[in-house]
């Protein structure tokens, strides 16, 4: 809508009430805080047409007003603006009383600069120590984080890392994760502002995992002192998304209810016990190099399986998790999604989603002992996880050119009227992201991927 205002014509948007603050946050970032929008009580997805019409009827006057008169707030900028990149400092009085001990947390909470849990005070000394975990210049901008278009300088990331409880030896992992998010195929804007719940899952490979103190054994994704590095890195990324990206609960972040996974997720591969080469080797890195992969996901859900007796049974049980029909299975038939890059005119198509399947080493060994490589398992899932083409077309159809020819996959068009035709749920076997970690039990986790994926090397420090 802001692009239309910029092009010189008035625009008004209709959105659900729960998006009101998120909308305001987005248009603030887009530089036109008074862009008109009207709220209807409920999201339209899945509603009957008559119900949608009734909701819109009550807003017709407001829609007309949006096109014919400017709100009083027009032109007034909101929120922090660019100036010096150096961080402001504040002096807080603390003492040993309960209120005094909580003074820094209250100061941050009053400004909505927190994830709601207590933090480590980001003192200049602590931030300086964190910055020793990288060779990068503190004022280098790693990315522009949306929806607020905040400048993610190395220093600002370090401030948030301190707050999360990170140690300097973990900082390069966090920076690499943000390097990943900066890649257009991550579509981090949509990850931030979608109404359904998505969160970045950080996957770590190589020697940095041990140096950073990450746990890749039992409970690695759960609570506990042994998992403090995993928790701190995941949490630090979330604090960056809140404080740098301005994706704040209810404003910017419009999730209908959220998920615990949004507090942070960081896993390292159990390379010692995995029967297969590490994931970063699949992505073109050497085993002795360190790399970070980020993929946006919802979930996870545990795949409980006490009954499988063969590799095929094991994979069948995993495959049973894949059919979440209206959320992307078979969507590749319509063509790749694309992500717009910042304020620019550029849009980048990307392949997605990637579904991370986190296998315990024992589960992976069942497959490997039967002679299956990781690629064999991926190919099996790709072959077996298919979906009715009719159900893909029924939802949203496919884009066609003027002559009715399918734009994205014309080679499939002859199946259009075949009620028995099926297509793979995901376009490529690699989109089943097999990652071996955790203890030696027979469980697995399934994450439903949403957008693209990125892997980058971790800087040697």
């Amino acid at each position, binding site marked *: 809508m802001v692009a239309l205002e910029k092009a010189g014509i*008035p625009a008004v948007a209709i*959105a659900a009430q729960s998006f009101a603050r998120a909308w305001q946050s987005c248009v603030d970032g887009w530089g*036109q805080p008074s862009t008109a929008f009207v709220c209807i009580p409920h*999201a339209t997805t899945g509603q009957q047409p008559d119900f949608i019409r009734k909701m819109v009827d009550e807003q017709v006057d407001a829609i007309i007003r949006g096109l014919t008169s*400017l709100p009083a707030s027009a032109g007034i900028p909101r929120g922090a603006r*660019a100036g010096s990149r150096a961080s402001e400092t504040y002096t807080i009085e603390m003492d040993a009383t309960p209120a005094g001990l909580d003074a820094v947390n209250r100061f941050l909470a009053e400004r909505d600069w927190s994830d709601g849990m207590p933090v480590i005070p980001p003192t200049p000394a602590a931030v300086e120590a964190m910055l020793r975990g990288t060779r990068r210049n503190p004022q280098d901008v790693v990315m522009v984080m949306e929806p607020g278009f*905040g400048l993610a300088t190395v220093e600002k990331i370090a401030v948030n890392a301190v707050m999360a409880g990170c140690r300097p030896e973990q900082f390069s992992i966090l920076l690499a994760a943000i390097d990943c998010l900066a890649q257009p195929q991550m579509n981090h804007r949509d990850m931030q502002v979608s109404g359904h719940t998505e969160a970045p899952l950080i996957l770590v490979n190589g020697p940095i995992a041990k140096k950073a103190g990450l746990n890749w054994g039992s409970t690695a994704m759960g609570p506990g002192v042994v998992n403090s590095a995993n928790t701190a890195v995941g949490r630090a990324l979330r604090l960056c998304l809140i404080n740098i990206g301005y994706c704040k609960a209810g404003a910017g972040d419009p999730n209908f209810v959220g998920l615990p996974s949004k507090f942070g997720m960081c896993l390292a591969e159990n390379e010692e016990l995995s029967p297969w080469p590490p994931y970063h080797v699949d992505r073109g890195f050497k085993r002795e190099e360190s790399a970070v992969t980020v993929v946006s996901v919802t979930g996870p859900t545990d795949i409980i399986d006490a009954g499988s007796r063969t590799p095929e049974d094991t994979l069948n049980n995993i495959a049973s998790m894949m059919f979440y029909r209206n959320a992307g299975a078979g969507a590749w038939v319509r063509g790749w999604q694309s992500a717009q890059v910042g304020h620019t005119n550029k849009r980048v198509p990307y392949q997605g989603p990637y579904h991370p399947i986190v296998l315990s080493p024992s589960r992976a060994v069942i497959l490997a002992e039967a002679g299956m490589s990781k690629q064999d398992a991926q190919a099996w899932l790709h072959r077996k996880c298919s979906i009715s083409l009719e159900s893909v077309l029924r939802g949203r159809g496919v*884009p066609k050119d003027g002559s009715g020819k399918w734009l994205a996959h014309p080679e499939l068009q002859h199946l259009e009227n075949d009620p028995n035709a099926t297509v793979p749920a995901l376009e490529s076997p690699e989109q089943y992201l097999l990652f071996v970690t955790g203890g030696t039990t027979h469980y697995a986790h399934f994450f439903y991927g949403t957008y693209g994926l990125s892997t980058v090397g971790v800087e040697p420090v």
Partner: protein
Amino acid sequence: MKVQIMSPAANRVDFKVPPARRLTSLAGRTIGLYNNMTGGADVAVDRAAERISQRFPGVKFQRYGGDLRPGRPALSRGTHIDEEEAARIASEVDAVIGATAH
């Protein structure tokens, strides 16, 4: 004890867009209806058009959805209008009503 802390909040890219001039009336105008291909958004903009037609004589509508660039698939969801598409729409209509399903 006094503790000095650094702000975790980022400076933002300084990007300002002036609001477009508003229309004096919708009568006789062409209004774009944009839905971003999310469920029910098309129904919402169509209803707005229906009601506006009843109030303003001569108003016309032009429908848009998804990725509007030539030869590109109208992608499935969450499609944003970029500057190129906005310029095209602005050359064809006088104003736009948009909707998102979420």
